[in-house]
């Protein structure tokens, strides 16, 4: 195998990372919207979806963006203007900050935190502030109800999410996401290393809880009480229009993509292929081409996970606010605690 050693200067690396970051946020958002929101949903409803803009309507998203950019940026009279304008930015920025810790290849990472998991979970909840602020500053009762519901829900589901990840952290013995990827791909199942050792096998319960919590964090059906377009008229987004609504919209799907990235890193082996296939033993031996191949693998896994998220979204009705709180506190949290306990006992025993 040819080992290409390319030395990229530091400024070049920085530039690549910035561009990569933007791509890592916008690309998933775009593909999710087109592939799932436009096409999969339409096909599930026996229709074709947008077909006019571009071949098979593939340029529809650009048409939509163009439409939103043309629209007037309306600010309600009684709104708290500065905060009102800030809210969508907070939501989007939190997405950008979140993607920072996700590794896409042996060297294709943005930052290599040693406490990456911790950081990701902390930053992930910043968007709550954006949503709450949006709901409050809109000076609209529906928005307020939506914002309050969102705050309650996101806090409630933050907890099972954190607890579900703890199992992975225990098993990998590290909070660094890169280490977690390596641990999965160098692992073996009872000596057989054909597929490495993705944590989804041992941590299936954790994976399930994590995905449910992600669904709730993203306020997708069945946990979309804060948006609930048929009763709260889109909740905290009610008053937003034009450009700011677009940011919320991108933020929603970009966050879905980024959470799917994180889930694939934590449970599905991330960017890696099982190292045994190529006889690698550790991260240092991984070939350089994985820096190109890794992101593609990640993208595939991300698409599968978001596909499931969207599939559920198009099929289910939504929970009531008190029901979803009850579900989080009475079902998910005890389950994830039990998961941690079992994982810890098994880990210590082995």
């Amino acid at each position, binding site marked *: 195998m040819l080992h290409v050693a390319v030395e990229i200067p530091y400024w070049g690396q920085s530039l690549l990372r910035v561009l990569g970051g933007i791509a890592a946020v916008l690309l998933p958002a775009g593909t999710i919207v087109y592939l799932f929101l436009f096409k*999969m949903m*339409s*096909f*599930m*409803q*026996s*229709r*074709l979806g947008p*077909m006019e803009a571009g071949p098979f309507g593939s340029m529809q998203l650009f048409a939509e963006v163009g439409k939103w950019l043309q629209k007037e940026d309306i600010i309600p009279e009684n709104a708290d203007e500065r905060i009102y304008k800030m809210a969508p930015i907070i939501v989007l920025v939190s997405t950008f900050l979140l993607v920072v810790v996700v590794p896409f290849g042996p060297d294709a990472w943005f930052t290599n935190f040693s406490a990456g998991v911790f950081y990701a979970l902390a930053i992930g909840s910043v968007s709550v502030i954006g949503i709450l602020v949006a709901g409050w500053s809109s000076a609209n009762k529906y928005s307020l109800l939506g914002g309050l519901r969102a705050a309650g829900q996101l806090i409630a589901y933050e907890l099972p999410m954190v607890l579900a990840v703890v199992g992975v952290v225990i098993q990998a013995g590290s909070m660094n996401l890169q280490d977690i990827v390596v641990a999965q791909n160098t692992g073996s199942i009872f000596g057989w290393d054909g597929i490495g050792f993705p944590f989804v096998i041992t941590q299936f319960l954790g994976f399930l809880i994590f995905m449910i919590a992600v669904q709730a964090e993203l306020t997708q059906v069945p946990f979309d009480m804060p948006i609930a377009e048929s009763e709260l008229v889109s909740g905290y987004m009610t008053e937003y229009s034009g450009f700011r609504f677009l940011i919320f919209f991108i933020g929603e799907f970009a966050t879905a993509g980024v959470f799917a990235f994180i889930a694939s890193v934590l449970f599905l082996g991330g960017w890696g292929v099982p190292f045994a296939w190529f006889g690698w033993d550790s991260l240092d031996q991984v070939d350089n081409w994985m820096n190109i191949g890794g992101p593609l693998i990640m993208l595939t896994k991300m698409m599968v996970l978001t596909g499931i998220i969207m*599939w*559920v979204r*198009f*099929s*289910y009705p939504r929970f009531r606010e008190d029901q979803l709180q009850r579900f989080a506190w009475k079902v998910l949290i005890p389950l994830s605690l039990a998961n941690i306990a079992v994982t810890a006992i098994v880990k210590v025993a082995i």
Partner: protein
Amino acid sequence: MPKVPGLVKGLGVTMGTLFRTVKEGADTVQYPHAKEAPPVRARGVIALREDNCTACMLCARSCPDWCIYIEGHKQLAPPRRAGGKPRQVNHLDRFDIDYALCMYCGICVEVCPFDALFWSPEYEYSEPKIADLLHDKTKLGEWMETVPEAPELEAGAEKKK
């Protein structure tokens, strides 16, 4: 057999529909490129056969919305039989239907005793200006081309007198 939870079944329904759409095509029609043919009896637009109209005002009177406007004058027509007296007939000057008011009930077509009004299933005549929806007698006459034959009736039906 254990009961399949409803949550899983629901996912199955949507996925099944997705595959069916991929395999058999969508149930929708891409409108300007492809069109569905409305049934023969569809009440799309009213066509007028001007020669048959005698300006008897029956349709205008039976219209619940008062959307038919008729004006006419009397004139002499050549006699039916050679050597007969010239007949006095009502000649139609104006026959307007205001489609902005019309509620497509079809009473006018039904009451017409001289078979001057017909339904056509044509539906593409929307206008940017509401005033253009007032169709005059030439425009109503043009719709005559689109009037289909009356359909055959289902078994057991009695022929109309």
